[in-house]
């Protein structure tokens, strides 16, 4: 699992590539420190290349979402595949995020 974070103007994009399973989540939780430190503007979580997400992955998304909410940031989840959408739906995450 790799995470690529880019900041352009007011938009921070985190691109997730691979499987966001539990061990991956442990790594990712460190990779996303920059976002959590400045959760302002628009945060785009690009899931186009993410094939899998576990509950720990969901927790990372939720952590980002909570941090953004506290600072008035806006989180957009982008390009999730159908399988992951099912998981989002199952967990009520569809209601927590703006899905694009």
């Amino acid at each position, binding site marked *: 699992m790799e995470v690529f974070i880019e900041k352009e103007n007011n938009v921070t994009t985190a691109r997730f590539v691979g499987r966001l*399973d539990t061990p991956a989540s442990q790594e990712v939780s460190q990779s996303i420190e920059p976002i959590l430190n400045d959760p302002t503007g628009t945060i785009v979580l690009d899931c186009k290349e993410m094939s899998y997400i576990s509950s720990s992955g969901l927790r990372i998304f*939720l952590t980002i*979402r909570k941090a953004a909410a506290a600072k008035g940031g806006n989180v957009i989840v982008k390009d999730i595949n159908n399988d992951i959408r099912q998981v989002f739906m199952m967990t009520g995450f569809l*209601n927590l995020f703006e899905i694009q």
Partner: protein
Amino acid sequence: MIKKILEKKKTWIQIAQVVLAAIILEAASFFQINLLVKSSRREAALKANSVLSTTEYEIRDVIDEAEQAVRSNMWIVQWCMDNPDSLMSVTRRIVEDTPSVVGSAVALVPGYNKDLPFFAPYAHSVNGEIEELSLATDKYNYPVHEWFIEPLETGMGCWSEPYMDTGGGNILMTTYSRPVNDPHNVTAAIMTADVSLEWLSQHVGKVNIYPQAFSILLSQKGKVLMGPADSLKMSFTVQDWEKSSFDQESFDKLKSEMLAGKRGVITLHTPTGITYVHYGPVSRTGWSMAVVIPDREVYKDVRRIGIICAILQILALAMLIYILFSVARSWMEYQQTKDIEEKMESELQIGRDIQMSMIPKPLPGREDLDIAAVIVPAKQVGGDLYDYYIRDNKLIFCIGDVSGKGVPASLVMTVTRSLFRNVSAQEDDPARIVTDINHSLMDNMSENEMFVTFFCGVLDLQNGLLRYCNAGHNAPFLLTDHIEELHVAPNLPLGVLEGMVYEGQETSLRYDDALYLYTDGVSEAEDPDHQLFGLERTEAVLHQRRSAQGHLDAMREAIEAFVQDAPQSDDITMLFIHYLNDNTQPAIMARHLILHNNIQQIPQLAEFVETIAEEKNLDQAMAMSLNLALEEAVTNVILYAYPDGIDGLVDIEAYIHDDCLEFIISDSGKPFDPTAAPEADVTLGVEERSIGGLGIYLVRNIMDTVSYRYENGKNILVMIKKI
């Protein structure tokens, strides 16, 4: 054999019966002989009486003839009294005309004729010639003779006592003499007729009834007139007869009876046996006649017949006893043979029963398998066995042949079969089954030198994997698109080498493949010329396409046609297995994964799930769901079950059923029931949502059934997902 027969009490009873039968038979015959003797005696009495009467008549005829001759010439004598010289011609005519009269005289009473005081002309026959002479000689002096005196005194005709006439005929004779009176009724002369006793005995009284029988004629005074040669002497009187060794009392009685002119029969006892004397008077003469018959004469023939009969009967009895013994002996021999046969038959039956009791029950009909087996016991049962059953969707089967025959082979067969059942109940590796059976058999069979050729197979009905192990048995035939012998390692038979480790082999059966197993009773079936049935004929039968049972029936028919009348020398046992499962997917597949309590091993779990998903052809969404559920469950264990720094294991088993997947996750960590943990509330907003609780929530949502139990120190979580 005879000794043995005699030792039996029953035999003695039978011998006694035979002896009794012999006694009855002899008694009957004795009774019969006795009757014959009695009737012979009666017959003898009749004969004797008949002789008596006949003789009496004959004597009377002679007497009548003599008396008649005298009477009929009396008038001539009277008439010639004046001319005595013509009297000679009268006497001559009497002798000439009367055959029984040998001499005749006319003796004038002395003084009647003054001119001829003594005058007695006499004519008699000498050797057929008539001789004339005068009795009035000084030497003879006729007036003193009894024959002259008695009629002169009595005035009646009478018969003299027998006497030897020395003056006249010089023969033994008796004389009838009768006075002849003149017209003045004065006795003028005595007229006589002599009868020769020799002539008499020659012509009358022939007693030919028995060789030793004879008759005796007594005169009035007891002189013997006629009798056996020796008694024909003047001197032989009854007193002489008396000297014979008769018992005195009976003889005295006979004498007095006879002299009294009575008629009857008397029994005399002599040292040589009983003698019967029948007696009776001869009328007018005062004589008495007796017929003497020795008793042994009477039944001599009967006795001879009796003796012959007795001998014949004894011979017949001897033969009968011999036949009885022969029959008894052959009966005993037959019984013994029969006993031996029955004993053998029952032993054979026991062997057969043992063998047949071992035959497995037919399997319920299956679509993936057609199986048939048959065992045809020989008359002297061998130790063939076969067995098969299904466990864990595996067909476990065997076929074997115990060396030797009869009950011992049957017993070893039973042991082998029981071992097979016991060992294979917990073990499905044929090599280990065979090794274990061999080990147990060596314990049991160390003393006798039997061994068992054995083939054991385990066919996985799901995937057609056939694992097998051969212990010296004939290689089975493998029927695929062609027929070949299954390649088998030529291992030693069971019961030969202690501690032998058997190597297993394996092959794969595809749909429609078949296996034909047999014992050497099939391949070594012999025809009357001792040709073997052999493998080629076997193969020829297998070439036809048939059901399992059809193959066995056809094989039996082929063997029967081949051996014809030759007796079956060994058991014939066959097993035919036709594999008919064309589902290439296994019905149940087990996968197993063991992870350490290290979160970095989670990708292995992902691979594990991925493999299952591929095998089961699951879609991407399903695969991911399963992966997610398993990861959540396993992560839970990895992170929380064991204390930090302690190495622990997570055991993941997956069972792939036709319609569902079953996962069992177990660990030895602290007891924890994830199903009891509080669930995440997915309806809450961002601020209220907690970080935990999502994992178990996902597991519950993805899986159809989730259950937890704590067992034997293990947390066991069972999850089932329908597919």
